[in-house]
């Protein structure tokens, strides 16, 4: 825990964390100092001048809060008339050359200029001379479209590419009110995190080609989630909306701050992985290749289970811990072999040492914690001996060529419990649709051994069952979340004395807990 210091804001004493700048220190106790260029992940630049605050008896009496460390006893003036006037004046100057095209701007509704105009300006424009004309809808590459006129030249995007990705594609060229963000000719954004500049942009200058003009942001419901694109488990906000007479659709993923996992950012692949939640889904239960009511298919499954002498089960490394527990209990009950074989989910060399991991599965660590065998040999021999394979959402076409897979499954009936209609699902004799990760609650353990829980993000019109529920219908004895959590507590020592709802929002670091649990 950081040291606390006391200082005064507008004459009122507040206790804040030491070692932070004024924006972060007093921001943490709910006092907002307006700022455009400062971002905690990128540091202070001091160019927007929105965060100028007064320091009573201070030298100098006027300082940029982003560059000023919070000091004990400091007397910060925010609501003094001269500070309010500065905020108003700077807002006026920010806006004189800004096209007021909010009605067609994607940022409207989450725009700092709009917010600050309402908070600090609210004056009519006095701009009665022609505005500066700059470039519009410039293709910066990597799905980023730039509008130089909307830009407030805060340089967040430039600093992101220099400090975080260290690729430096963006720069501010020219001087004076001709200063503008640009790329070098023929050298577009080419890094795997470029989409973050859209989030970082405090105004509508950086827009996402993918999201442009799709939704007004105030219609979007925001649900916290965990990205399942790789083993990092980046925290995301799932922005979704159910338009009238339509289904609930995800429009974008945005990064959600978690200092312990992903910080402020996510990769572009993860950002666009929302599409797979909307498209290519298995929405109907199938018998052979014909759609059938789910109850009929479940009954058929039960018959197959009864008929089979030997059964093999395979789990996706994307399944939640709870799903894994339910399926593990099912395997035990059926006396079946349970495999987590999923080498195809690993793309060796793809990771970058920052957020992107080689392993494209969200919960491989969970398979390990529950002691589930992941070897290819064991999986193949179990399948070859079994008359029935129940596949819980493991996309085997990632690990096998389709012809090899067909060969392997020869003589084995397959029940596919799938969220997606993949070629692998098409090979199955029976198929049961299930919810995907944005539609159920659960927990996953990431590559750094951090256990993170997430809630159900959205409900589709045809709200599909979770793998847990299907496992129960197929005979798993763990009927309730409580029972499933109890099983997890047996396998994961860190959960022993924890209630499910007591898992910290930042995630539970199992490395720490294991160390703490070691008895001398």
């Amino acid at each position, binding site marked *: 825990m950081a040291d606390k210091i006391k200082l005064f804001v507008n004459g009122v004493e507040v206790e804040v964390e030491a070692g932070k700048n004024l924006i972060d220190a007093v921001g943490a106790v709910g006092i907002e100092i307006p700022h455009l260029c400062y971002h905690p992940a990128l540091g202070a630049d001091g160019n927007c001048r929105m965060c100028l605050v007064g320091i009573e008896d201070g030298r100098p009496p006027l300082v940029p809060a982003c560059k000023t460390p919070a000091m004990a006893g400091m007397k910060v003036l925010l609501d003094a008339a001269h500070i309010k006037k500065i905020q108003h*004046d700077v807002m006026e*100057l920010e806006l004189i050359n800004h096209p007021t095209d909010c009605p067609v701007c994607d940022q409207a509704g989450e725009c700092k200029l709009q917010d600050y105009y309402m908070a600090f300006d609210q004056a009519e424009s006095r701009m009665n001379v022609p505005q500066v004309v700059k470039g519009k809808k410039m293709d910066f590459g990597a799905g980023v479209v730039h509008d130089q006129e909307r830009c407030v030249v805060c340089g967040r995007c430039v600093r992101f590419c220099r400090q975080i990705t260290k690729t430096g594609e963006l720069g501010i060229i020219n001087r*004076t009110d001709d200063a503008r963000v640009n790329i070098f000719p023929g050298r577009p954004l080419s890094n795997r995190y470029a989409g973050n500049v859209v989030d970082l942009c405090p105004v509508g200058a950086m827009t996402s080609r993918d999201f442009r003009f799709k939704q007004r942001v105030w219609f979007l419901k925001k649900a916290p989630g965990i990205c399942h694109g790789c083993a990092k488990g980046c925290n995301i906000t799932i922005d979704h909306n159910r338009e009238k007479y339509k289904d609930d659709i995800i429009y974008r993923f945005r990064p959600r701050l978690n200092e312990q996992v992903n910080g402020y950012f996510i990769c572009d692949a993860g950002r666009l992985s929302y599409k797979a939640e909307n498209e290519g889904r298995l929405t109907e239960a199938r018998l052979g290749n014909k759609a059938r009511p789910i109850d009929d298919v479940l009954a058929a499954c039960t018959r197959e289970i009864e008929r089979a002498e030997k059964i093999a089960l395979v789990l996706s490394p994307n399944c939640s811990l709870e799903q894994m527990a339910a399926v593990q209990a099912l395997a035990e009950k059926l006396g079946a072999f349970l495999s987590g074989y999923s080498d195809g989910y690993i793309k060796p060399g793809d990771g970058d040492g920052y957020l992107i991991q080689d392993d494209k599965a969200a919960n491989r660590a969970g398979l390990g914690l529950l002691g589930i065998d992941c070897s290819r040999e064991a999986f193949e021999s179990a399948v070859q001996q079994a008359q029935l394979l129940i596949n819980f959402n493991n996309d085997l076409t990632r690990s096998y060529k389709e012809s090899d897979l067909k060969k392997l499954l020869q003589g084995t009936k397959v029940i596919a419990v799938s969220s997606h209609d993949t070629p692998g699902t098409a090979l199955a004799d029976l198929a049961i649709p299930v919810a995907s990760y944005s539609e159920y609650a659960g927990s996953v353990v990431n590559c750094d051994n951090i256990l993170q829980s997430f809630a159900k993000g959205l409900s589709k019109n045809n709200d599909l069952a979770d793998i847990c529920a299907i496992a129960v219908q197929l005979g798993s004895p763990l009927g309730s979340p409580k029972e499933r959590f109890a099983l997890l507590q047996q396998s994961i020592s860190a959960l022993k004395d924890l209630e499910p709802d007591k898992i910290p929002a930042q995630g539970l670091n199992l490395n720490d807990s294991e160390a703490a649990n070691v008895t001398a």
Partner: protein
Amino acid sequence: MQVKILSAKFDIKDANKIKVAKKHGAYSTLDKVFSMPPEDVIELVKNSGLRGRGGAGFPAGVKWSFLPKNTGKPVYLAVNSDESEPATFKDRYILVKDPHMMIEGIIICSYAIGSHDTYIYIRGEYTTQVKVLQAAIDEAYKAGYLGDKVAGRDFKLNVTVHRGAGAYVCGEETALLESIEGKKGQPRSKPPFPAVAGLYGCPTIINNVQSIASLPFIIAKGAEAYRAYGTEKSPGTHLFGISGHVEKPGMYELPLGLPLLEVIDKVAGGVWKGRKLKGVIPGGSSTPVLLPEEAKTVTLDYESMAAHKTMFGSGGIVVLDETVDIVHLVKNLIDFYHHESCGQCTPCREGLGWMLKIVKKILRGDGSMADVNLLRELCDNIEMKTVCVLSAACTMPVRSYLDKFRHEFEAYVAKNDSSAAEAK
């Protein structure tokens, strides 16, 4: 009135050559300097009262004493030869006429502050000056005044000339450092000040050419000899560039503290063509204008200028005769600062362009009184809200013109029929 301290060798043919310069005393102070402990050199310069000649007038010796001790980092000296303030043309004389005086000053300063690397940041347009200066530096290296053993002493000193690329803002000391580091010339937020974290994050002293060139005289003759010139608080001499509507424009070395009007009349031959005086820009375009009656009482030193609500600045005096159109002048002025704004801080980046458009509108005859008032208000709204003082260098003089010559702006507005109708 004129004196010959800094300009002692300016009239000597080939004084930029080391042979000639040495014959007239160049590098003669080094024996004395190296016999003194560095602290004593700093003390001597402090006692001389030498103030920074770049425009701000901060005491040079005091600046040197801000250097933190024993940081384990190298100390750098940067000589600001960017001389880009409009109406200023003093340093170029030193660079061309007597570069060895400056090199000698660099050795003195480097010894005092314990620096072994000097960067001379020279404005890119000074092509002749760069050639002459570089030739002088090469000579100094050859003669053993620069390099591994300065004047045979165990003191290493390297001097590098770094050419600017034509940005006014690079005369601002931290923008100058950024430019030397190869970055876009944009001023840094202070603190930290360059004395603590300057060039490449190391302690750095930045002095103007004329400040550095003043050192050999102070070392040779002592603080009292320097203080024999000028006033108590503004001691010494200064190279003044007098331009504008005078009979004899030019560069003149004068002791500080002389009455401004007397200098214009006796040194520069008075307002030309027998015309009346309208105003005087006392120290480069950034300094607020003085009316004739103010010019009567002001003297050429930091204190008197401050008392007259203007600044001593860079010694670039511009005399305006009665024919000057102040609104045109203001347009030119804003045009310059707008063009030179680095574009970093919002108020300066956006505001100066707005001011320029407004004054152009007034000049076109499309302006209203509201525009004049807005222009005046913007001066207050922009000034001192930025990282550096470039915006203030524009708004301070513009405010002075608007306050002192408001009737000229109103006259333009009166020509605008629609605005007259508006007023009714």
